[in-house]
């Protein structure tokens, strides 16, 4: 069973093809550039190198968020378009879960994505017997709020994601030597993690269709929030 996975929720654009046994190929660019311009050419380069065509793919996986609203839509519009043409299933994966999945670490993993103005998209995860367990659901929090709710009983906490570039000093100040950080290659989105999680979900029987799959922004649009406040 071959999976094509994509993540464009942050500045990273990444796509990968994998099956149950191995990662066949992964193409990742981590540079500030327009995803819409690069993504399909990246997918084509990867697929052509593997001598694969979209009809050889059995499952299409994309990150549903949180992350850049525009980035999420570019990724999902692409995944939905590809799956639609070849009429295959799609699976949406949380960007944060995929970040946590990057680091099989015996302890707590807290992915943080910069959501600007001192806020992070975050969730709390823990590896137990080789399985990734979600402890706190994905949400948007002020960085200090997050650090306040980190359980003092945790022995070690591993942070990854682009929020680490912005908030490392504040994390260290609060959590001291309890805080750990991922190696650089695991600090960023990897389409292979999206794809592997999609395969696990598929085996558990979950399946979505390309009509319904939409981003999970975790935030209403600003216009909607302002409208809500007026009421």
């Amino acid at each position: 069973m071959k999976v094509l996975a994509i993540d464009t929720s942050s500045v990273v654009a990444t796509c990968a093809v994998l099956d149950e046994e191995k990662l066949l190929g992964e193409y990742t660019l981590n540079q500030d550039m327009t995803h819409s311009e690069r993504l399909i050419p990246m997918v084509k380069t990867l697929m052509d190198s593997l001598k694969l065509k979209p009809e050889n793919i059995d499952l299409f996986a994309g990150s549903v968020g949180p992350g850049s609203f525009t980035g999420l839509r570019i990724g999902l519009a692409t995944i939905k378009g590809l799956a639609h043409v070849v009429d295959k299933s799609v699976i949406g994966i949380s960007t944060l879960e995929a970040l946590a999945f990057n680091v099989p670490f015996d302890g707590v993993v807290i992915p943080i994505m910069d959501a600007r103005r001192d806020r992070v998209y975050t969730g709390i995860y823990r590896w137990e017997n080789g399985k990734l367990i979600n402890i706190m659901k994905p949400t948007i929090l002020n960085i200090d709020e997050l650090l306040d709710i980190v359980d003092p009983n945790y022995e070690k906490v591993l942070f990854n994601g682009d929020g680490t570039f912005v908030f490392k000093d504040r994390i260290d100040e609060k959590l001291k030597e309890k805080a750990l950080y991922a190696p650089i290659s695991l600090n960023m989105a990897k389409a292979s993690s999206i794809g592997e999680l999609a395969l696990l979900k598929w085996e558990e029987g979950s399946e979505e269709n390309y009509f319904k799959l939409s981003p999970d922004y975790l935030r209403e649009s600003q216009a909607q929030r302002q409208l809500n406040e007026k009421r």
Partner: protein
Amino acid sequence: MEKDIITLAIETSCDETSCAVLKNGREVLSNIISSQIEIHRKFGGVVPEVASRKHIENINIIIDRALKEAGVDFKDIDIVGVTRGPGLVGALLVGISSAKAIAYALDKPLIGVNHIKGHICANYIEHKTLEPPFTCLVVSGGHTYLVQANSYTDYELIGRTRDDAAGEAFDKVARSLGLPYPGGPVIDKLSKVGNPRAIDFPRPCLEENSYDFSFSGLKTAVLNYLNQMKQKGEEIVVEDVAASFQQAVIEVLVEKTIRLAKERNSKIIVLAGGVAANEGLRNLLEIRGSEEDIEIKYPSTTLCTDNAAMIGSCAYFNYISGQNSDLGLTVEPNLELDQK
């Protein structure tokens, strides 16, 4: 007989999610338009982020409906056309990402389309024998362009608005009159009962020889008039304000268009864009056209609004003249008429 060319077209530049299937650029097999107007009404105008969210939820459903209604399958598609600008960047990105994925998966050419040229091409669908050259006035919520169509792909930009688009002025004046969004159709309707000579609003014509437009001065004149009347405690006849404002706008649009047509010896003037559905504009242009022996053409109301069929028509003409895009195609929110 050459093989038919089947085009799948996608349009998401503003608040309509649309997908169409065309045969040979002029025959519409389907043209599905999902309008978000009800969603944006509560905000008093189009909210870009809200529009983009709606596009990603809808896009594949609309594509599927377009294919089904046309009675074709993905495998029947020869080219994929998509709007690359001008428009709202986030909204355009949904359509272009979807179109690229489909073009790649089908291994068929991708063709990026200028939305304004698309509006003009709506006339090739409506009028099966229409051929360039002709003079064209494109008016919509976001655009006011005076264009000379030299060929199916060469559209010469002659004049444009220097500030507000005509449709934008309609919306702003409507809001100041307490009328609902969108303002254009409401003002057009009220104008039928109001007196267009009741208030003498300025006709902003700029310099003698310019084909450019400017509507912000006119809009300000309307706002000043409303303020003065309120201060004096005098009654405002909404119908008369609407009719007098609309008259000022359409006189300027019509006179400049007629002048260009005469200068270029055009026997045909083509109207395009959302405001082309304005009856006051159509009527005045037809009266002036018949005086000058110029034929006036415009699309049906559906083809005036943003729709994918017009994008498909433009994509077809680009394709047969060899103007294909590659998969690195970018969106251009401020795409100009003379840009590829």
